[in-house]
């Protein structure tokens, strides 16, 4: 049997709700509230207002003329999620969940964060909506991203260091789940990606789907046709699923997710879950995970803290199984080259996460015809990564 007949929230065989009984009523209430509000005109008007007048949506679909000319193949468009308030796509999901939590009568948001982008976005939404906010962050990551820790505190959030396990993102997720079992009544877990137990993968996808809703309309407006390929980086997979969603039924559009290969998929220092992982059950979902032969979750590595997670969202796992989406692995070296390339070529410094998608665009565009079109989602801006890239290149630069 692949799954239980009572199981909810499946994408093919993936997904489900593998969480302690203590949290079951909380996720059932969340699902019920979401089903009520997602069709509610007033809720949607409020969210649209936050998107447009607070987060700065719609984000630009920018024609990268220099990159197109330089690569000499497909026309390259960049979907500029880096221009959103707080500098990344994370704000789309956070504004949606914070508004939903508020409607549910919750007064406190808790969240996990890796590099700090989702933590900053959650702290921002909490400040805006007058909610209490606690962010869990691996102790290792707090040291590496001291600026984001201060940013969250500036926004009024409490940042709690996680020393358990490897003291990185997966441990921050585990600790946030533990805190949620401890305090449910007034608290919403604002999960940062299309992962975890149902209904999170669906809720987060729906809030991020604004990316492809806009880009599809913008592309039809600019070119009068759909793109031939859509590229996005994949950690848990929220910007990628948001970038893909409204193209899934357009079979002519190739959907390509770019995972973090770290030092290579033939090494242990990788976070490329679909390329190297196996089917498993962890953090509330059935999906692909980097793990050993006994199911112990593997420590993963990528230069990009935002992609440094041992699993992938269940909808991506299903899109991989069905072959509707392709997943490729991009190494640290390739991502850093792309980071520098886009900075020099277009005057746009991408997040190191997004640079994984740019790296694949650099390989793919020259193999495509000049009358073909690709959209690359820039999930975030790269200011946060400048010091780390300098160090990668051997310069002693600290924030």
């Amino acid at each position, binding site marked *: *049997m*692949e*799954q*239980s*007949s*009572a*199981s*909810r929230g499946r994408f093919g065989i993936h997904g*489900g*709700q*593998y*969480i*302690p*009984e*203590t*949290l*079951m*009523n*909380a996720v059932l209430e969340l699902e019920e509230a979401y089903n009520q509000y997602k069709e509610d005109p007033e809720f949607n008007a409020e969210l649209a207002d936050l998107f447009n007048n607070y987060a700065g949506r719609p984000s630009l679909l920018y024609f990268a003329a220099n990159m197109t000319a330089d690569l000499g193949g497909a026309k390259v468009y960049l979907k500029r999620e880096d221009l959103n308030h707080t500098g990344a796509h994370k704000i789309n999901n956070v504004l949606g969940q914070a508004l939903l939590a508020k409607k549910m009568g919750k007064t406190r948001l808790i969240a996990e964060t890796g590099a700090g982008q989702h933590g900053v976005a959650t702290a921002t939404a909490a400040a805006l909506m007058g909610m209490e906010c606690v962010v869990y962050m691996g102790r290792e990551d707090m040291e590496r991203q001291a600026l984001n820790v201060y940013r969250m505190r500036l926004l009024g959030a409490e940042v709690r260091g996680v020393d*358990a*396990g490897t003291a990185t993102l*997966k*441990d921050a997720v*585990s600790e946030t*789940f*533990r805190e949620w*079992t*401890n*305090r*449910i009544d007034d608290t919403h877990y604002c999960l940062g990606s299309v992962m975890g137990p149902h209904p999170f993968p669906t809720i987060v996808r729906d809030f991020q789907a604004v990316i492809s809703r806009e880009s599809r309309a913008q592309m039809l407006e600019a070119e009068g046709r759909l793109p031939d390929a859509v590229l996005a980086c994949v950690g848990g997979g929220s910007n990628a699923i948001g970038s893909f969603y409204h193209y899934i039924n357009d079979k002519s559009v190739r959907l390509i997710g770019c995972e973090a290969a770290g030092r290579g998929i033939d090494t242990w220092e990788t976070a490329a879950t679909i390329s190297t992982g*196996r*089917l*498993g*059950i*962890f*953090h*509330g979902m059935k999906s692909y*995970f980097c*793990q050993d*032969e*006994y*199911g*112990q*979750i593997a420590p993963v590595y990528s230069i990009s803290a935002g992609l440094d997670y041992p699993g992938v969202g269940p909808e991506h796992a299903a899109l991989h199984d069905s072959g509707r989406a392709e997943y490729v692995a991009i190494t640290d070296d390739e991502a850093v080259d792309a980071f520098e390339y886009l900075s020099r070529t277009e005057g746009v410094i991408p997040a190191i996460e997004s640079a994984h998608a740019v790296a694949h665009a650099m390989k793919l565009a020259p193999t495509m015809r000049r009358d073909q079109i690709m959209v690359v989602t820039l999930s975030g801006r790269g200011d946060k990564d400048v010091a780390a890239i300098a160090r990668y290149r051997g310069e002693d630069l600290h924030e």
Partner: protein
Amino acid sequence: MSNCTLGDGERPTQRAAANGERTRDERPTQRAAAPRRSFPHIADAFANSPNGKAFIPFITAGDPTLDVTEKLVLAMSHAGADLIELGIPFSDPTAEGPVIQEANLRALANKVTTDNVFNMVARVREQSQVPLVIMTYANVVYSYGIERFAARQAELGMGGVILPDVPHEEKEEFDEPFAAAGLDVVSLIAPTSHERIRAIAADARGFVYCVSSLGVTGVRSQITTDIGAMVSLVKEVRPDLPCAVGFGISTPEQAARMASLSDGAIVGSAIVRMIGELGEDCVEPVADYVRRMADAVHGV
């Protein structure tokens, strides 16, 4: 039931337990007398206790070593434990507090695997038929192969599994292969379960694990949940199904109170903390503690 099962009259005396585990020359007889699959089910652990109430200690297998785990299982059985929960360590134990999290990491650092936990259980089975249940996380069982895991447990005369990250909605995928092997996947109910309790109890097997408090495992000075109300909801649906309470229990008084409100008490963190502090010297102190706790539960 096999005649070497530790029933009422056969429970070793405290003095025998204090003398340590059974001698090696007892082993061949024990093994010959224990035909395959003639093993105690989880429910027998309750039925065979002096007063129908079970004391259920938890330890993480391989902490500090599998040899010590083997000695602990035998010593806890001699000290009056009715059912022993053996944890197979997992890298990311999301339902555990710091004490058991650290035990999991210590065991994994010792290269403990599912297979060598089963091999240790095989050594225990040469000496004891104490009822045993595995506590671990879904991925450990799923990764091993659910049917294969159940078959190995059945071969070793174990009672089944407790999987804190498999709620009622996801249980069937695990339940069916385990039931086919004659084993139980234990259901949990929590203070937040409310109206879910009846449905969970309706198809629960073995016993119902009553989670006493919100949050994760760990010692608590007070348990404020209305345990009696949770248990009576279970009993409305399944009058004969045992309920045991876990999370937060550390003193004989707490254990006796929980056993008076239900059919047993489960203690993990208090024991695992002793093991963490005492290392290889933990066996006798843990046995003494288990004896006090088991006496408290059996004295209700």
